[in-house]
């Protein structure tokens, strides 16, 4: 028996089926958790955000006018919750005032010397500012298009394109010597 599509599950959920919600949750929980964990770099906070996200989905399902928009909508809610947590941690994200700064720390290379080299890519990804890290997460892990990323983040497609390029350029400068050594 083929599993039900998202649209079918949403239809059942709107008719009051509790098992439909459980199925949607099981389908997306790992991906939403992975997205939150990679963005927040904290297991406990990621759990909290996932819980809040699915509760909001449950309460506000009537706001979803097009079932085919469920996935971007789900991630946009998770994103908003995650950024609420980030703001509580006093991470400020003001791209205009901080110009082209991509890194959270001044000396990311020195910070990574002590880290486990197997996780060097993850370490550098974690050192990116949340704005850039999020773009890479949505593109590289979730395989979302620029249009979908723009819908989730509220950015223009041009800003998504530019942000991804800046993040890759900055990472390239730091990772190139590492990749050369590991050849």
């Amino acid at each position, binding site marked *: 028996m083929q599993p039900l599509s998202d649209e079918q599950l949403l239809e059942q959920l709107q008719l*009051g089926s509790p098992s439909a919600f459980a199925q949607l949750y099981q389908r997306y*929980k*790992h*991906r939403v*958790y992975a997205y939150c964990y990679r963005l927040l770099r904290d297991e406990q906070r990621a759990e909290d955000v*996932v819980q809040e996200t699915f509760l909001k989905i449950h309460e506000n399902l009537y706001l979803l006018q097009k079932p085919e928009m469920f996935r971007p909508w789900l991630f946009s809610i998770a994103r908003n919750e995650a950024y609420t947590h980030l703001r509580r941690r006093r991470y400020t994200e003001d791209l205009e005032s901080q110009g082209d700064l991509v890194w959270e720390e001044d000396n990311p290379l020195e910070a990574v010397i002590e880290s486990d080299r197997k996780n060097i*890519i993850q370490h550098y990804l974690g050192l990116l500012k949340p704005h850039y890290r999020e773009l890479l997460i949505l593109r590289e892990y979730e395989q979302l298009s620029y249009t979908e990323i723009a819908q989730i983040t509220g950015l223009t497609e041009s800003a998504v394109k530019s942000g*991804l*390029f800046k993040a890759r*350029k900055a990472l390239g400068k730091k990772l190139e010597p590492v990749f050369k050594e590991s050849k």
Partner: protein
Amino acid sequence: MTCEEHQEQISELIDNELEEQQSPALFSHLSTCEECRRFLHTTLRFRAGLQEEALPLAPTRLDQKVLGTTPAVKRYVLDRTARRSILWKRRVSLPLPAAALIMVLLMVIVAATSPLWYPRLHPQAQTQAQTVYVTTFPAVEVDGYYQRPNTRIQ
């Protein structure tokens, strides 16, 4: 076009977002520019490194937190009437002083425009009783006014 601009195109290319007509010029440039080839190579290795990472899995305790605490699923009907009804029933939370101010303003507006109060507020608009002497028809008194049929008293 500068290398920076070409590398922006490389970023779009690996995301399958580059316009088809731009590809030939980009590939032509890549065949001659080592710096841009290095950028492409590093970006693809970075991508491969990310994809080697195991997916962080949601812990099982999260299931109880999410499924155990959500209330019974409400029934939503997607037609416009029901949606309007749901919106109408939603409570709007308003601070008490703001609610009181709105009530007072509404009362003032109603009072200012109500015909019951209008004459008191606008004395000049009060109608004055006029005595109309009718020679042909008998005068008929209606509520203090003398009125002929089909006659409007001003």
